[in-house]
């Protein structure tokens, strides 16, 4: 009776040891980049390039771990203790939250790197079915009756907030800064939305895989990615006449890098995004590079859309977030779900 038990325990202990000692990559330095959903492919490529470059410059091996999720979710995780060395999120408000609620990043972070600490930008475009059967060419088409629009929930998704602001900005400019008419425009838009996914990727899945909707409001880079993934024979991109300059910023998490002793590498990591090599990788992954030279090289895939910034049409994030996206904000007031 005891013999089988002893054997079982021996096997159990041996396998525990085996699992535990399975080879792990042994790098000297680890960086954790906490990012939002659409940047998976971008950072896969970028991390390899940076590691090679760092090794060449300093002889040190650095391994970069990635975490992806909704921008707000990721910010919360960092606030709750996720040991990010750098954060590369979808909007400045999420990084501001880390500053305000956990004091992990020093205020004034947006000035520490060029271009509001945003090495690459994107914008909001329309992804439609091949042939554009519903004839969607610009924003007014999106609020037409009978058109089904897929966009995620602006209260949980960073990308969704840019979608909302792009629509808001268009109407704001069109109606000569008349807030009442702009609100009506937004209400009409969301009246056409049957499903509010919690994240940008969920919305893309709904449109692409589940076949729901006539038009998907999407990050430009996500739209290109969808076409690459699913084929140019199924979808096409329609660029609106004007759209928002979406700025997804990056920052070093001061308290964490000082604790880990990784400040030098982390700062170099973010700076590398601004180099030609980094900008090329961004452009290849369909993010608009800040560098004019690289942008000119990839001109074909980044058409000239008239871009307005968030401050042009709605104000700073500090004011926009509570006014529009907090509980009982403008979105809550305007959103009436289809029955």
């Amino acid at each position, binding site marked *: 009776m005891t013999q089988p038990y002893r054997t079982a325990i021996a096997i159990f202990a041996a396998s525990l040891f085996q699992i535990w000692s399975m080879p792990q990559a042994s790098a000297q330095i680890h960086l954790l980049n906490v990012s939002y959903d659409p940047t998976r492919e971008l950072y896969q490529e970028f991390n390899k390039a940076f590691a090679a470059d760092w090794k060449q410059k300093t002889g040190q091996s650095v391994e970069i771990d990635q975490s992806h999720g909704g921008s707000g979710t990721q910010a*919360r995780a960092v606030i709750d203790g996720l040991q990010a060395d750098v954060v590369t999120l979808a909007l400045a408000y999420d990084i501001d939250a880390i500053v305000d609620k956990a004091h992990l990043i020093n205020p004034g972070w947006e000035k520490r790197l060029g271009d509001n600490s945003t090495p690459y930008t994107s914008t909001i475009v329309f992804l439609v079915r091949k042939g554009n059967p519903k004839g969607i060419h610009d924003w007014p088409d999106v609020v037409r009756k009978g058109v089904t629009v897929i966009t995620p929930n602006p209260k949980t998704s960073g990308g969704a907030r840019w979608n909302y602001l792009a629509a808001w900005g268009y109407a704001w400019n069109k109606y000569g800064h008349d807030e009442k008419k702009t609100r009506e425009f937004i209400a009409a838009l969301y009246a056409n939305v*049957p*499903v509010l996914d919690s994240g940008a990727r969920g919305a893309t899945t*709904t449109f692409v895989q589940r076949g729901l909707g006539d038009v998907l409001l999407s990050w430009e880079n996500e739209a290109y990615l969808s076409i690459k993934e699913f084929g140019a024979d199924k979808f096409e991109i329609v660029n609106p006449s004007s759209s928002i300059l979406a700025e997804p910023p990056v920052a070093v998490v001061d308290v964490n890098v000082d604790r880990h002793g990784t400040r030098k590498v982390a700062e170099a990591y973010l700076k590398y995004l601004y180099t030609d090599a980094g900008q090329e990788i961004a452009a290849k992954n369909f993010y608009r590079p800040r560098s004019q030279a690289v942008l000119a090289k990839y001109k074909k895939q980044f058409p000239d859309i008239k871009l307005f910034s968030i401050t042009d049409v709605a104000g700073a994030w500090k004011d926009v977030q509570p006014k529009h996206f*907090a*509980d009982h904000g403008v979105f809550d007031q305007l959103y009436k*779900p289809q029955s």
Partner: protein
Amino acid sequence: MALKRPHSVVPGFGLTLGYTVSYLSLIVLVPLAALVVRGTNQPWANFKEAVFDPRTLIAWRLTFGTAFIASVINAFFGLIVAWVLVRYEFPGRRILDALIDVPFALPTAVSGIALTAIYAQNGWIGHWLQPLGIKAAFSPLGIVIALTFIGLPFIVRTVQPTIEDLDPAVEEAAALLGAPRLTTLRRVILPAIRPALVAGFVTAFARCLGEYGSVIFISGNMPMKTEIASLLIVTKLEQFDYAGASAIALLMLLSSFVLLFLVNFGQWWSTRAQQREA
């Protein structure tokens, strides 16, 4: 407090008591206390608002409503399944029996994506329902389907032993006294099974209230329409509203505890009733 040392020859009281209590404290009591504190350590107005806000109210209604419907469906079909498994012989009976436990053993994320694949517009069943105008995925119906999947084993496995324990002599007596079979079923067997059926229903219901993984893929997560309470907690967390999330979590916990208590109490009461009869 001096614990009266039980008169037992068997050793190990102190050791097991100490270990059990420490383990429970660390894993259960302290974390739950944190929830209670966080949830209640806020102005009553905030608590009320978090819990009675229209979006939350709709989430409650949806969560309880779909859980109830799913559990009723399971009560009906689960009873039939349990009966068939115990009483009849047919090819594939053992496979059927094993299949019942699948929702119990399968990770909720897996059932979530599998159910979505089947019931979406272009899915196996979804594309048949679509011309009928029935939207299975991204609607409350989808949630009911997912919850039915999750809850079935609870009812079947609770009712099955009771059916097995039924005394055939009672049925024989009823038959000998001239009762048609359906009457016997209705007036002799069903009352005997009812306590177990109710217990299974309540257990399945409690389970459905808190379900997350299998629902979030198929529901569409639309606020005011298909947003379940557990998702609302996550959403509030993402908005840094710990207090609101804790408030909702507390209420969910309370309702689950009440249900759990009802089940245990019911079982204790019916055991006492049986003992009194004996």
